[in-house]
């Protein structure tokens, strides 16, 4: 009698422990799945936020932004050289011609730029001469429309979609992108990007 009671107690205890164990495992599994999903969502969100900031940063420091297919092409300013004081952005109009512009406080030998840009989107290719305080045009024959302030540009860059990958020139920015569409007007750049969900980004020009 005593042995059978102990055996019954043992069986009941084991049954309770098994139930508790199974429920705990189910609970842990759910918690793990929720955490993994949250983590992936957070990673995706961070990826998108970073991409948004990257594109905004690139477009805000660019000129001649044009739509190309569903993507966008633009010329990046050489911001670092400007901030480092390698070129001043100011031209002495009286001392400039169709061959070169005179620009004080400019160490052109330290600048790696290919174009000079003026207001109203006038842009000319520059010659890589090492004479400071002067910027030479590559085309010395044709007439040019120059202004007192200018920007130096590196070259043309593109952001576009290729085989479900968002590309910046030849580098991959984001994977698994279904739609990337850019629309331009004179005040804003509107970007529609679809991954698992769609996002609308509006960038002020």
């Amino acid at each position, binding site marked *: 009698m005593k042995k059978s009671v102990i055996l019954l107690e043992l069986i009941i205890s084991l049954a309770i422990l098994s139930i508790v*164990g199974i429920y705990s495992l189910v609970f842990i599994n759910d918690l793990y799945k929720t955490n993994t999903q949250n983590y992936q969502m*957070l990673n995706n969100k961070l990826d998108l936020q970073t991409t948004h900031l990257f594109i905004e940063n690139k477009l805000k420091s660019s000129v001649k932004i044009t739509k190309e297919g569903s993507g966008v092409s633009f010329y990046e300013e050489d911001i670092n050289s400007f901030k480092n004081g390698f070129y*001043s952005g100011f031209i*002495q109009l009286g001392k400039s011609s169709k061959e070169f512009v005179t620009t004080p406080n400019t160490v052109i030998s330290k600048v790696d730029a290919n174009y000079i840009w003026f207001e109203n989107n006038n842009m000319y290719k520059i010659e890589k001469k090492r004479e400071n305080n002067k910027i030479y045009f590559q085309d010395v024959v044709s007439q040019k429309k120059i202004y007192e302030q200018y920007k130096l540009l590196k070259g043309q860059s593109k952001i576009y979609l290729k085989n479900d990958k968002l590309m910046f020139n030849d580098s991959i920015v984001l994977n698994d992108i279904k739609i990337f569409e850019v629309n331009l007007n004179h005040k804003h750049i509107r970007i529609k990007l679809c991954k698992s969900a769609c996002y609308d980004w509006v960038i002020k020009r």
Partner: protein
Amino acid sequence: MLLVILLVVTFSFLGINTLRIKTFQSDTQTKQYQKIQANLHLEFAKKFILNLNLNNPKETCINKIKINNDTFKITADISYISTKSDCTKATNIDLNSTYSKGVATIDLYVESRSSIFKIKLHERFLKKL
């Protein structure tokens, strides 16, 4: 007993993981807000400086501007490429002053005062004198 230990250990790891994700999330959000705020301050300071008259002959030359703010340090360093000769940070050039009085080069800095979330923005721009 063993099961209890196993559960405590598992939950501890999960708890740490969850806390880590939450901290990461809140940290990113705070940084984002700080950046948005710093950007707004930068835009405001830029508009303010662009509306200033930096070429008033009756006033002394402005080389530095500081804007008081509790959460951000907002400073602007100004140098000149002009015919002005009274400024300390100036490059004097030969200009026909009827057409052009030169430019001021403005380096604008917005720096967060927070010791945890450090953010410093810099923008350089030109202002016609």
